[in-house]
């Protein structure tokens, strides 16, 4: 068999790499042999980076974003608005909103969206922790910034139903036209949502 020719460490790395999303056995083999031929430090740097990734990161115990120290920098930052909370699906969503510089409150990362088909229910997400945070009553507004998909919207609706109470404003991001986009190339549903959500000039 062809497999027996490869030294076991080589085969093992190929196997590990091919488990990554978007990497097939051929790409995995190419990457493995690239690393074999490259300078030792570069490969070891990669190994170290992987180790640090696991050992030096954790979830923030308040907002469940990925962080090196707990609580995370955003949760520690006293300069941020303590009364407004933005709920997102993934840590990358926090990054996207931070890049926009349009928001200066706190975050809560759910780590997914509700999807019965995939067996994901509210109890599989950080929903209980969100409820607890809100029940402490410091927030004035909750922004539900889940994805505009069926799963994201269902998750938002669920949270909205569970947390609706006196004195808490619950909002969600607007749906509509992309900035710099062309009206003519916008699909019908986006356009009809944009029409529904039109604003006074």
């Amino acid at each position: 068999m062809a497999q027996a020719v490869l030294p076991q460490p080589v085969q093992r790395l190929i196997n590990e790499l091919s488990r990554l999303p978007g990497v097939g056995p051929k790409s995995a083999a190419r990457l493995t042999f690239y690393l074999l031929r490259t300078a030792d430090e570069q490969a070891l740097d990669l190994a170290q980076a992987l180790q640090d990734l696991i050992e030096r990161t954790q979830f923030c115990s308040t907002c469940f974003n990925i962080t090196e120290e707990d609580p995370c920098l955003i949760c520690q930052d006293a300069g941020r608005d303590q009364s407004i909370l933005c709920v997102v699906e993934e840590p990358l969503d926090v990054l996207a909103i931070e890049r926009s510089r349009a928001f200066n409150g706190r975050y809560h990362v759910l780590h997914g969206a509700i999807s019965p088909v995939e067996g994901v229910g509210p109890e599989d997400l950080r929903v209980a922790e969100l409820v607890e945070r809100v029940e402490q009553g410091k927030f004035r507004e909750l922004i539900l910034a889940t994805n505009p998909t069926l799963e994201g919207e269902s998750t938002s609706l669920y949270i909205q139903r569970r947390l609706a109470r006196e004195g808490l404003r619950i909002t969600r991001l607007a749906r509509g036209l992309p900035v710099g986009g062309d009206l003519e190339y916008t699909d019908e549903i986006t356009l009809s949502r944009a029409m529904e959500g039109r604003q006074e000039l």
Partner: protein
Amino acid sequence: MLAYQLVYFVLLMHITRLSLTNFRNYGRLELDLPVGPSLIHGNNAQGKTNLLEAVYYLATTKSPHADQDQQLINWVAMQAEEPVIVGRLVAQISTSQGVKTIEMRLIYERSQSLRNGRGSFRREALVDKRKVRLMDLLGHLRVVMFLPEDVQLITGSPRQRRRYLDITLCQIDPLYCRTLSNYNKVLEQRNALLRQIAEGQSSRAMLPIYTEKLVKLGSRVLVRRARFVDELAREVHRIHYEALTEGRETVRLHYLPGLWHNKPGNNDTDTNGKGWAAWWQTHSQDEAAVAERFDEAVETSFAADLARGATSVGPHRDDWQFLLNGRSLSSYGSRGQQRTAILALKMAEINWMTGQTGEVPILLLDEVVAELDAQRRALLLDYVKDANQAFLTATDPAMFSLDFLRNASSFLVENGRVQLDTGQIGFS
């Protein structure tokens, strides 16, 4: 006259060039296509039908036969380990808005989860070389296809009849197509949730959210389908009565919304039996009323749904039927009567699409001309003559009139190769 026709043709929707790679029995095909009718002839199993299917697939993103998408590929490079594009269909089309290229790629991926390498297919759609969602391919080409097995629409399963409604409607109504696709997603989620609730793995807290979406999207689907069947029914009746049976028989299309008819245990006396039909007649275009009725039906069937782990009411349980002189055509009609009704349906489809878009769709006729008598053949060929473009397959071109052949282009198909006939055909 000819010059005028030419200008008229060039402005309207038609395919100028078709390229196929590994599609059915075509390894590679590049074909320039003329406007007007094209006769595709050759012996059996040479690839005549596959050519029509390629056009149909580009127009609708569906195979003309249910559940056959996987078999579209010419099974060659199937051993590849990386994702590879194994099939490609490209049509260059000319429309009133200019020239466009629409493309469908069939990509084979060895699935990650299954060790033993049984792969799956992913489809990619491109318009003018830009990737778009699959459903954005719809509406660029509009086709009506005639197949010998169309008669199964009458005798076959409700699923086939729903599929027919959806494919036809999606070609001209993108909003319907999006709504239907979202409805199906919600339905899938709701059914999964029902099963989890039944097994005690999930609370009921999420259920109202999915039910609300189901009802909202579902009633839109119901209302749109009802309107479509109504419009189609009028045309079918007229063509059938006036042109096909000379006033001897009346055929009606009857839409059966999936909110009542398949629930024999229903004790809701007001809407049971004949009652629902009257209700539907007056309310089918009132989305709010339909939604209310749908909501009640979901409520009523909740216990049963929980036990089954599936939602038992909604447009996914719709059906429609032909009534011939007031009786079910599938149970009481002869084979000949069924064929006549299908012919009326397809002709009505052409008229409906033309009315909706202002353009005659491209016609694809697979061996259907052979089974018609002379009078109906002439009638059908009138439609063909009026179309900007039509493709007809036939094993024997001699069945067409000389007059028709003079105005048609003709292609010979032999073992996956297609060749334009330059001389006259049908006189061997």
